[in-house]
């Protein structure tokens, strides 16, 4: 007994020790997650990246300047001219409200950070939170050891880094954190059955709805899991407590967000939750009645109910199907449909198909984005089955669905990344468990200690290992793998103590899971190397692949680093050299940046909510000069902005995007026919190009005066000489071209003051000089 008391106090000491250690490890993980995302700030500058973040930044500026009520009701008249955009009702406010709150808190603490700084660093901060949330979630699924592993994997996984570097101020930065926290609270409610966590779950779900359109993933995954649990016979009242309040409170809270509004009850994306809500009530009722009746009576009840209930069910389902089928898309939105049917977008909605983030990913991108985790995920899935609990079945469901969706759209790799990290964390921690336990079991034999019974063996060997581990810890390097190893042992012990395992069972367990010592040592080393490769890859990906701000481009050449800052040059020119009310037309990619940096009204921007408006701009770009001038004049456009990469070899310029202009324009205006621009099925701009292509506005504006650069007009992106070299512009005039010709701005010429007669201009010069005195003979006498 004294020994037992001693071991229990040892155990509590070890628990405390473990707790403190895990706290510091988590802190380190947070710092790691934050700092690995800072490469872009170090390599370039603290600037906001890409396109969408500029819009979010502008909205945040407005929020901090005008307060929340004006933001909630903001009608933006400087975009989608002349339709305007109701920002309050079409934007997911979570990100901007978060950053705004952060800024306000910092300012009230007299830390005067600018809004831009707060926006740039929001994503790294929330990725630190996300890794802590992953720790909590995986701890609920498998245990604290798995939790720590999963947290460190998530802190570094390249897929998540790509969307949350410092400067990538986009919805996903906070949405992934909200996603994981919601899942954690759901699993926690499921495990504990406490209504308190259910409330927190609903609030976290509300935060997720505020942040990202991907919340539909949650509201479909959780009902699927509930259904799975019911079907596999794992119904319990905790399931009811976890699910039912979430549906009611969650739907209510989701309707509060103006973007979602009544869609929370009317669209098909939410029907699954209501259906399962009804089902779980039926099941709960059935279990309740089963509980209070005897078995025989229960059978009677079942037969009675089934016969009546079936009829009612059929009627209700028929009504539902009629309702749903009455709408052409069956109530699903375009984006959701393109997720369910990958070919839908390219057939029906070219706008969605044209966004590069919506393309399916290639195989190499899986390896690039999750690297080593790709092998560990299947092992993790198996580990989840080993004792199958509600939480681990949820994890399996999560990974299966997210794998499918990530295969449809490359943007959703981001949702797949936390699942992969959880699974890999579980797999790694289980592997470490097995190996270290084998070593530990066999180590006493080597160290010459006598046999103890199972409980003591474990405790004493742990003590021995502890002493061996302490010097290990002192030489702890930046990589916390050794400490992870220790953590495994501590935590495994705690786990064992909390779960009521009998000693015999543990003995059996030990007997089953023992591997030869050398093999386990080598395996452990190999696992450590695996981790090392992962870390190296992640750091490389963060530094080289995902840190480019895309507003500033760099290239390395023999004489050093070239920086292409043409975009900001062009926007600054627009800002300083045009009137405040001038309208700028460009392809929709640049809309957000133009409004945010140049502060001018644009015609279309990245929100792409109005296909007809975009098609109008696309048609204008594909039409000949006069027709394009008419279209732009009807929209009160003053300046046209074109991105051209042919001089420096920038591949994402407007000529490469031209096929989308033709397709989208042709989708709404039938006089634009794609075959007119194709030669042998390809878009060409060289001498083989079709006359329609050589005459269209985009061609002329891109290549105007290009031949003056090198005399031949060699386009470095398309790698040919251009077809029409000498271009005259009759309705537009060039007002600005940036240093590397990447952005070219043209102004619409006002309509002509006088309209010329039809007589052709004759070459009168020669005749005038040759016959100067001819007029004398024909001069009339004015007096007659």
């Amino acid at each position: 007994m004294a020994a037992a008391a001693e071991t229990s106090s040892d155990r509590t000491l070890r628990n405390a020790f473990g707790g403190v250690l895990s706290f510091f490890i988590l802190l380190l993980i947070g710092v790691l997650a934050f700092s690995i995302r800072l490469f872009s700030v170090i390599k370039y500058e603290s600037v906001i990246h890409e396109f969408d973040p500029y819009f979010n930044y502008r909205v945040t500026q407005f929020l901090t300047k005008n307060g929340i009520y004006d933001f909630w009701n903001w009608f933006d008249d400087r975009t989608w001219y002349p339709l305007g955009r109701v920002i309050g009702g079409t934007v997911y406010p979570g990100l901007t409200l978060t950053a705004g709150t952060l800024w306000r808190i910092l300012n009230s603490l007299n830390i005067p950070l600018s809004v831009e700084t707060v926006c740039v660093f929001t994503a790294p901060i929330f990725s630190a939170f996300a890794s802590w949330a992953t720790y909590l979630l995986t701890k609920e699924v498998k245990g604290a050891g798995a939790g720590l592993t999963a947290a460190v994997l998530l802190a570094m996984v390249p897929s998540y880094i790509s969307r949350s570097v410092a400067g990538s101020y986009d919805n996903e930065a906070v949405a992934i954190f909200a996603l994981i926290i919601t899942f954690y609270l759901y699993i926690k409610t499921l495990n504990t059955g406490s209504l308190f966590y259910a409330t927190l779950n609903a609030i976290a779900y509300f935060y997720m709805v505020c942040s990202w359109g991907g919340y539909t993933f949650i509201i479909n995954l959780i009902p699927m899991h509930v259904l799975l649990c019911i079907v596999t016979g794992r119904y319990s009242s905790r399931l009811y407590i976890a699910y039912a309040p979430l549906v009611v409170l969650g739907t209510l809270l989701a309707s509060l967000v103006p973007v979602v509004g009544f869609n929370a009850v009317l669209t098909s994306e939410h029907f699954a939750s209501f259906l399962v809500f009804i089902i779980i009530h039926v099941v709960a009722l059935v279990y309740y009645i089963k509980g209070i009746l005897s078995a025989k009576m229960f059978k009677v009840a079942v037969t009675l109910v089934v016969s009546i209930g079936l009829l009612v069910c059929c009627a209700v389902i028929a009504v539902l199907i009629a309702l749903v089928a009455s709408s052409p898309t069956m109530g699903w939105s375009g984006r959701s449909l393109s997720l369910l049917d990958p070919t839908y977008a390219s057939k029906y909605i070219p706008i969605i198909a044209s966004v590069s983030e919506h393309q399916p990913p290639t195989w190499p991108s899986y390896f690039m984005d999750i690297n080593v985790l790709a092998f560990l995920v299947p092992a993790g899935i198996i580990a989840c089955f080993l004792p199958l609990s509600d939480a681990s079945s949820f994890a399996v469901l999560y990974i299966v669905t997210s794998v499918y969706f990530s295969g449809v759209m490359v943007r959703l790799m981001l949702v797949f990344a936390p699942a992969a990290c959880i699974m890999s964390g579980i797999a790694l921690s289980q592997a470490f468990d097995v190996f270290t336990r084998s070593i530990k079991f066999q180590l006493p034999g080597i160290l010459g200690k006598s046999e103890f019974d199972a409980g003591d063996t474990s405790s004493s060997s742990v003590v021995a290992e502890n002493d061996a581990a302490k010097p290990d810890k002192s030489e702890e390097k930046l990589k916390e793998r050794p400490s992870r190893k220790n953590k495994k042992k501590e935590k495994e012990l705690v786990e064992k103590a909390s779960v009521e395992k009998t000693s015999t069972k543990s003995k059996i367990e030990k007997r089953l899971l023992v591997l030869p010592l050398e093999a386990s040592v080598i395996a452990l080393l190999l696992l450590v190397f695996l981790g090392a490769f992962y870390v190296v890859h992640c750091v490389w990906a963060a530094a080289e692949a995902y840190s480019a701000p895309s507003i500033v481009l760099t290239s390395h050449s023999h004489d050093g680093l070239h920086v292409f800052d043409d975009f900001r040059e062009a926007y600054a020119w627009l800002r300083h050299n045009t009137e405040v009310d001038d309208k700028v037309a460009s392809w929709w990619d640049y809309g957000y940046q133009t409004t945010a940096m140049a502060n001018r009204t644009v015609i279309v921007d990245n929100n792409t909510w109005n296909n007809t408006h975009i098609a109008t701009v696309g048609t204008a770009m594909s039409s000949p000069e006069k027709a394009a001038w008419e279209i732009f004049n009807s929209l009160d456009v003053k300046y046209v902005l074109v991105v051209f990469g042919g001089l420096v070899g920038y591949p994402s310029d407007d000529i490469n995007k031209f096929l989308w202009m033709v397709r989208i324009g042709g989708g709404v205006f039938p006089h634009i026919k794609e075959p007119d621009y194709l030669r042998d099925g390809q878009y060409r701009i060289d001498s083989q190009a079709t006359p329609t292509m050589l005459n269209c506005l985009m061609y002329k504006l891109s290549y105007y005066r290009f031949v003056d650069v090198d005399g031949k007009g060699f386009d470095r992106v398309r790698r040919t000489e251009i077809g029409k070299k000498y271009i005259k512009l009759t309705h537009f005039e060039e007002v600005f071209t940036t240093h590397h010709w990447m952005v070219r701005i043209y102004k619409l010429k006002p309509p002509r003051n006088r309209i010329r007669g039809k007589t052709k201009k004759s070459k009168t010069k020669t005749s005038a000089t040759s016959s100067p005195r001819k007029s004398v003979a024909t001069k009339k006498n004015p007096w007659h």
Partner: protein
Amino acid sequence: MAKFLLYITLTISLLPFFAVSFSPESPIDRRVLVLLDDLAVKSSHSLFFDSLKSRGFELEFKLADDPNIGLQRYGQYLYDALVLFCPSVERFGGSINVASIADFVDSGHDLIIAADTNASDLIREISTESGVDFDENAAAMVIDHTGYAVSNTDGDHTLIASDDLIKSDVILGSKNIEAPVLFQGIGHSVNPANTLVLQVLAASPSAYSANPQSKLSNPPSLTGSAISLVSVIQARNNARIVVAGSLSMFSNRFFRSGVQKAGSSTKYQKSGNQEFLTELSKWVFHERGHLKAVNVRHHKVGESDEPAMYRISDDLDYAVEIYEWSGTSWEPYVANDVQLQFYMMSPYVLKTLSTDKKGLYSTSFKVPDVYGVFQFKVEYQRLGYTSLSLSKQIPVRPFRHNEYERFLPAAYPYYGASFSMMAGFFIFTVVHLYSK
């Protein structure tokens, strides 16, 4: 010292007169450059020039190939209008050429061009720039065998009497011109698709344009009423141009002569030339038909300052003042067809502005139920008047979240249910806690 003071007082007292004479308010042209082929034209067309001088114009007569002439010096225009009575000039002297005349018109100044038989290519080119096309045959004249003017001297029917005048009080004055107008010269055609050009004096349907000396070998290209004898052009910046095919129609001889159109019995003592051309010159030099719109105001009903943004279903007032230049002062313009559009890619509201006869045009309407960036557009283009094109951009926002109707009677059951739920919850907690 006294002299100095005298000079000062004199200058100061004369300053207002200087100010008035150079006032930018009056659109009247004061300094006119008249380019002639032959200085004899100055006296042979003196009636026309005198009428101009009597209205306050300073005419400066120069030969067309005088090497000292120029329209502008150091970027400033020296003249406010140009009269080209030099149909046979091949090349202008000084710094005048087709491009400078085109720029002159494009900067808002007026032009009168008179061509004649064998007009030079230069004059033809200037006319083409303005928007009319003379007959390509250099020696062609307008011949009318049924509408010619009866005369003792001319026998080849090139002297025609035309009364096909444009019906416009603005261009030709309110008084009806009874007598036909004598014309002897070349005809031009006007592109019907050209919205800026108007035929003021057209030939009769039986006229055609051909060389009177030679035999007709092909059918003439210009025939009938398509031949325009005098045309006016009002450019988009409201500069006005008159193109006439005959220099002699401006002459004293034609002004004073009587006219009898062939086939009609009435013989008029005096041709209509003087009336016609004087009225036309008044129009060209903006003494008639020149409008200005000032003081655009809009505000919500009941308020007086202009808001930066309207809300849907707001009531608003719009007012604008339109004046017409009478030759000496700005008079209120009275018309009942000035319309206002509330425009966003297409007019959502179209209202005729009501006038108070003192130049103020106003209306009030309700903002439509659509939000967006609208424009208050007044597009007023009437024959002979300068075009008014006013446009003011104003955004229209939707309702704020607290501007919707509240406490709808239809929703009382729902309010009642929610409150009853809250009350029920309260009662239930009490019962649950204290029953046992």
